[in-house]
């Protein structure tokens, strides 16, 4: 009877102690696996959301300390673009514009807007026939193009070197427009401009009007099909704005470097009472992806409680069953076993139970418990972003995805198993070490 066999007999022939130990360990490991998987899913989802949001900082007026003289100079822009990790800049004007020589698109799905509902009139410059002119210094850096939610199908994307307009395919088709045609627009400031179409794009966007629509037919102005992108100069001309008063969007190479770039900009000797520097990646994440953060916190809390409660339960069980170790240790010592051999035997028997519990937990966590994980994730995805008047597909991805554990997760799980293995061995080892062989003959043992 080798040590391995003795340890095996110890496991299978002492059912009460070992089944209780097995059940507790299985429950702990299953909980830990679920917690770990949810935590890793939350981390991956956060990473995905941050990448989807993009990495950018906004330099604008200081919102806490409004100063009318706010101005962004070309020197400031030059200083910023030379910083490491800065990959680009953008300035943007997006406002309603009125088509003159074309009509907007009124295609939709979902709830039909009530033609008698004139509630849009309460809002300045919203009409059923408007479009939105989205003028940018760098249109390519916009989320829809960066995330490939919109793609150029004809011509080029406008920028400061290629002034002009970029319109959506539906708008082009309904008005029989093509690259090279002029569009005439007027703004609420009664300024009229004519600009050339230099590109046409198609989009994954849908335009589904919900029953929460409070704008009547004015909602059509918000259709993704009615969004016209342009070079910044057209926006400046149409809305009579100065580029010096526009916010500056500073594009960074990765979300991890946003803070670093922000700190570098803050080092510039500018009047920071006038300027405000805002981590928009973080702001958007906080505004839209709080459910991911909550999921991460929830999984950490779950892991903490499983650790704490599991350790307490395990300690109680091991204490309750500690007499087993005294009795058997005494016999083994009387037969001539060394203490370290006995300790190794108990280590092996505990290892068998821990390993069996670990395998059980893997099966449970990946089969029966997978529905529980899905439930947790689905619950977290139902966080409302407010009442939407319409849906379109052009949003950064804030979803939570179920991830596999990955190498790091598996490594952490193995370490946790090892910690519990050592913890489970403490009681038997303690009893063997402190056991006085003479006790085998003592009256107390009888």
């Amino acid at each position, binding site marked *: 009877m080798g040590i391995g066999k003795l340890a095996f007999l110890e496991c299978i022939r002492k059912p009460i102690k070992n089944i209780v130990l097995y059940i507790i360990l299985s429950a702990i490991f299953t909980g830990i696996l679920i917690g770990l998987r949810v935590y890793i899913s939350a981390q991956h989802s956060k990473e995905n959301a941050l990448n989807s949001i993009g990495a950018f900082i906004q330099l604008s007026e200081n919102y806490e300390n409004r100063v009318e003289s706010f101005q962004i100079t070309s020197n400031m822009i030059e200083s910023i673009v030379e910083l490491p990790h800065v990959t680009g800049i953008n300035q943007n004007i997006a406002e309603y514009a009125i088509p003159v020589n074309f009509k907007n698109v009124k295609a939709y799905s979902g709830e039909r807007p009530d033609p008698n509902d004139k509630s849009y009139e309460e809002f300045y410059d919203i009409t059923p026939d408007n479009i939105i002119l989205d003028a940018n210094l760098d249109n390519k850096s916009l989320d829809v193009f960066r995330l490939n939610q919109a793609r150029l199908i004809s011509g080029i994307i406008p920028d400061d070197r290629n002034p002009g307009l970029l319109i959506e395919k539906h708008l082009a088709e309904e008005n029989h427009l093509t690259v090279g045609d002029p569009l005439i627009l007027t703004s609420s400031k009664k300024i009229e401009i004519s600009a050339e179409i230099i590109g046409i794009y198609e989009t994954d966007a849908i335009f589904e009007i919900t029953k929460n629509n409070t704008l009547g037919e004015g909602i059509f102005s918000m259709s993704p099909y009615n969004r016209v992108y342009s070079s910044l100069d057209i926006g400046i001309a149409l809305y009579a704005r100065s580029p010096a008063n526009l916010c500056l969007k500073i594009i960074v190479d990765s979300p991890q470097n946003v803070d670093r770039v922000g700190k570098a900009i803050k080092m510039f000797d500018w009047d920071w009472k006038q300027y405000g520097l805002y981590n928009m990646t973080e702001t958007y994440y906080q505004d839209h992806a709080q459910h991911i953060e909550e999921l991460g916190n929830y999984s950490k809390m779950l892991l903490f409680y499983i650790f704490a409660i599991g350790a307490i339960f395990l300690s109680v069980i091991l204490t309750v069953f500690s007499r087993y170790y005294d009795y058997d240790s005494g016999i083994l*010592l009387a037969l*001539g076993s060394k203490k370290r051999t006995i300790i190794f035997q108990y280590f092996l028997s505990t290892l068998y139970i821990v390993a069996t519990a670990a395998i059980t937990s893997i099966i449970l966590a990946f089969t029966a418990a997978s529905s529980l994980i899905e439930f947790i994730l689905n619950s977290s995805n139902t966080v409302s972003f407010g009442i939407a008047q319409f849906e379109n597909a052009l949003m950064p991805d804030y979803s939570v995805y179920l991830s596999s554990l990955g190498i790091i997760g598996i490594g952490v799980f193995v370490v946790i198993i090892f910690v519990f293995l050592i913890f489970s061995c403490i009681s038997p080892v303690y009893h063997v070490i402190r056991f006085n062989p003479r006790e*085998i003959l003592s009256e107390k043992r009888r």
Partner: protein
Amino acid sequence: MLELKNITYSYTKNKDVLKNLSLQFQPGKFYTIFGSSGSGKTTCLSLLGGLDEPKSGKILLNSKEIKEIGYNNLRRKEICFVFQDFHLFTHMTAIENVMTAIKISDRKISKVEMKKRALDSLLSLGLDEKDLNRRVTKLSGGQQQRVAIARALATKSTYILADEPTGNLDLKNTENILNIFRELVEQHNKCVIAVTHSIKVRDASDICYEIEDGILTGET
């Protein structure tokens, strides 16, 4: 020969449990250490088995101090215990108990040889074959004590230290166990040292050391 030489032992500073005690035990003889409760007889057994160390004096096995031999080695190779409460592994069968002891005493033994030796020992002590693969908790007190003796026999230890070996047995089983002890001594040249306060056991032994307050008061 196993020998206690001028042994003094105390649990507390002021009171000696054994006082300058000298005893000798030779193979081929059945010894009893007889005395009332608290006389120091169990302490003697504990010292002989290397479960404890004396305050002064020497314990010798074939003229070599058992401390030098190593207490674990001593218990593995030379001596074996038989307890009043049997002290068998309750989660094991009779044969598994004996095989465990054999494996501890001889780490290199083959599985076949180990099983053969265990079977021989158990059957030689009158246990039925059907009982060998039963959990020891299913066996009677007499059968359990035979398993405990078979464990001692199978390890080929010369010295069998028995602590009140018949204390939990009825008259019939007591006689059986005493007969087995006699057989071990006469046919296997073992040395049985039984600590007892039973007159019946004392009378069955070849030599009886009577101890009172840690002092040898008689030898018969």
